[in-house]
C-alpha cells in the first residue's frame, strides 16, 4: 500500500570509496522531485547504513560505489535488512559496476543498478514506480 507521505530516501556511500559527486547530485535531484533525502556522507559500513535507514524510517536506500567493492558491500546491506526483518525498503545501487555483476546483485536483493550516464529522471521514475510502501 502506498501512503501519501513524501517518499523518504537514504543515499549512502558504503566502504572507503570517496567518489561522491554522483551521490550528491542525486540527493539534490531527488529533493527537487519532492522526496525527502538523507545523505550519509562517505566511509559508511553496511551496519551504519542499515542503522540509519531504520532510524530514519526510509522507504528507499540508494547505494553508491565506484571503486569495485560493491560485490562485498551491497549484498551485506540487504542481508542486514533481512536480519532486522525489514522487507519493505527498496534498495537500489549505482556506480561503476560491470555488467556481469548485475545479475548476482539483483539476486541479492538490489532491485536495480544504475550505471554511469543514467539520466536522473530514470532514477526518480524508478523510485516512484517501485517504492514498496
Amino acid at each position, binding site marked *: 500500500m502506498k501512503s501519501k507521505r513524501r517518499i523518504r530516501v537514504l543515499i549512502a556511500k558504503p566502504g572507503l*570509496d570517496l567518489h561522491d559527486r554522483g551521490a550528491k547530485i542525486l540527493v539534490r535531484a531527488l529533493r527537487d522531485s519532492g522526496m525527502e533525502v538523507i545523505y550519509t556522507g562517505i566511509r559508511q559500513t553496511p551496519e551504519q547504513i542499515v542503522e540509519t535507514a531504520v532510524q530514519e524510517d526510509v522507504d528507499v536506500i540508494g547505494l553508491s560505489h565506484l571503486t569495485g567493492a560493491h560485490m562485498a558491500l551491497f549484498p551485506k546491506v540487504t542481508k542486514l535488512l533481512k536480519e532486522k526483518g525489514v522487507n519493505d525498503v527498496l534498495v537500489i545501487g549505482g556506480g561503476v559496476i560491470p555488467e556481469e555483476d548485475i545479475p548476482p546483485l539483483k539476486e541479492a536483493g538490489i532491485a536495480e543498478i544504475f550505471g554511469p550516464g543514467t539520466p536522473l529522471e530514470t532514477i526518480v521514475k524508478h523510485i516512484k514506480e517501485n517504492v514498496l510502501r
Partner: protein
Amino acid sequence: MFDKSELASALKEKERWEKRTLAKTLERFPERLKEFTTVSGMPIERLYTPMDVENLDYVRDLGFSGEFPFTRGIHSTGYRGRLWTMRQYAGFGTAEESNERYKYLLEQGQTGLSVAFDLPTQVGYDSDHPLAEGEVGKAGVPVNSLKDMEILFDGIPLGKVSTSMTINATAPQVLAMYFAIAEKQGVALDGVRGTVQNDILKEYAARGTYIYPPEPSMRLVTDIIEYCLENAPNFNTISVSGYHVREAGSTAVQELAFTLANGIAYIEAAVKRGLPVDSFAPRISFFFACHNDFFEEIAKFRAARRLWARIMKERFGAKDPRSLLLRYHVQTSGCTLTAQQPFNNIVRVTMQALAAVLGGAQSLHTNSFDEALALPSEIAVMTALRTQQTIAYESGVTNTVDPLGGSYLVEYLTNKIEGETSEYIEKIDEMGGAPSAIQKGFYQKEIADSAYKYQREIEDRKRTIVGLNKFVTDVKVPIKILKVDQEAEKRQIERLGKVRAERNGKKVKEALEKLRKAAEGQENLMPYLFGAVKAYATNGEISDTLREVFGEYKATTIV
C-alpha cells in the same frame, strides 16, 4: 600592446563591420544559440579583437618564456628542449601486478611513474582491517609495509626514474618507505626525483582521504617539506591539486582559485615553521585537470602560471626565480568520459591532452577510454600513452613555445580567469585563509552548486555530450575490461600476516612508542617514521598510533 590611434581606427572598423556585414548575416542566418559559453559558463563573444585586450602590456603581462611572469612558459625553449614527462597513474591488485604494469609502461616509452595506492592504504588501514574488505587492490596498489614497497619497485632504478605518489594523509610513512627503498638500492636521497601529493586541504574539501583533524595534518605536510629540504632536495614535497576539485564538479576558475589558495596556506605554514620561502618554494608543484573546453583550459594554465608568480613575488617576497614557477602535472578529465560508446573517449582525451600541451604542462597523464567502466586494461593504457606520443612527435605543436600566445581570445580568457580567480582568493583571505574557508564549508558548497548546475544542463540537453544525450546508439562495441584478480586481496592479507610474524616485534613496538612520544611533542616526525617503517611496522599500525595522539576528523557533509 596597441597604440591608441590603431585601436581607435580598429574600433571604427568594427562598428562599420557590425552594421554592414554582421547585421545582414544575422538577419538571414540567426546564430544557433542565444548565448555561447565555456564549459564553466563563461560568456564567449562572437569575435575577439585588439579591443578585448587593449590594456594588455606585453612585457608586464606576457613577457618571454622562462621569465617573469611566466605566462608564456617556465622554460625559455618550451618543449624544444625537453618534452613533458609522460606519466600514467597506475596501480592495482598487489605489488607484483603493479610492478609488472610499471615495467610495461616504461617499456612502452613512458618517462615517469605514477603510483595509485588503494583506498585502505590512503586512509591508513591495513589490508586485513574490516573497513578494507573488498577494497584491497581495487583503486590502486595496497602497501601495508616496506615489504610491499620492495616488491613494487623491484628492478626499477629509483636513481633514474622519477616517481609521483598520490598519497596524502599517509604520505609521511609511504614517503619514508620510498626513501628506504632508494637507500637499499644504494641511491643517495639527493639523487631521488619525484613528487608526493601531500595535499591534505583538498582532501577535506573535495577528495576525502583525510584521517586526522586539519591542524596535525598541516603539521605532517610541513614535516615532509622540512625533511625533504634537508635530505631529498630534488623531490617535490607537495603537488597542490586542483584535479580533484574539478572532478568533484567545480568550474575552471574555482579549480584554480581553491588550488592556489591551498598553495598559499602551505607556504604560510612552512614560513611559520621558520623556513625561508626561497628554501622550499621551488619544490612546491601543482596538479590540474584538463576538461573539455579547449581554450578555457589553455587560458587557465597560462593564468595559473602568471598569477602564482605574482603571488609568490608580491605576497611572499620570493627572490629565487625558481620559487615563482608554477610547475604542474595534468590529468585529462575523468568525469568527461562516457561509459556509452567508449571509443569516443579516445577523441576527448586527445583534445584534452592537446590543450594541456598547448597550455605548457610539465607532466601529463592521459586517461584510458575504458575508465568509465573499470580500471584500464593494458591495451587502453597503451592507446592513452600513444595519444601523448602522437601529440609529441607528430603534431608539430611542440616546435614553438606557447603557440597560442597573442590570440585575442586566449589572452582575453587568460586575463578574465586570472581576474576572477584573484577575486575568489580575496574572498578566501577574508574568511581567514583556505583551512578556515574549508572548515566553513565554502569550497564544498561552491563545488556542489557547480556540479549540480553542470549535470542539470546535461539532463536538460542544454549541454550536448556526444553518445550520451545526443547521437545515441544501441549498437554495443564489445570491449574487454580489466578484472582485478579476486584472490589478490587474500594473497595480500597472507603476506601481511607473514610480515607481522617474521619481523622483530619488540623493535616495532619500540619504534611506534618513539613515534607516539614525538607526535605528542613538536618534533619533525619523519625520522621516527623512518625508524618505524624500517622495522616493518605497518601503515595501519603507524596510522593508529597517530590517530591515538591526533584524533580523527569528523566531516560535516555538504550537499
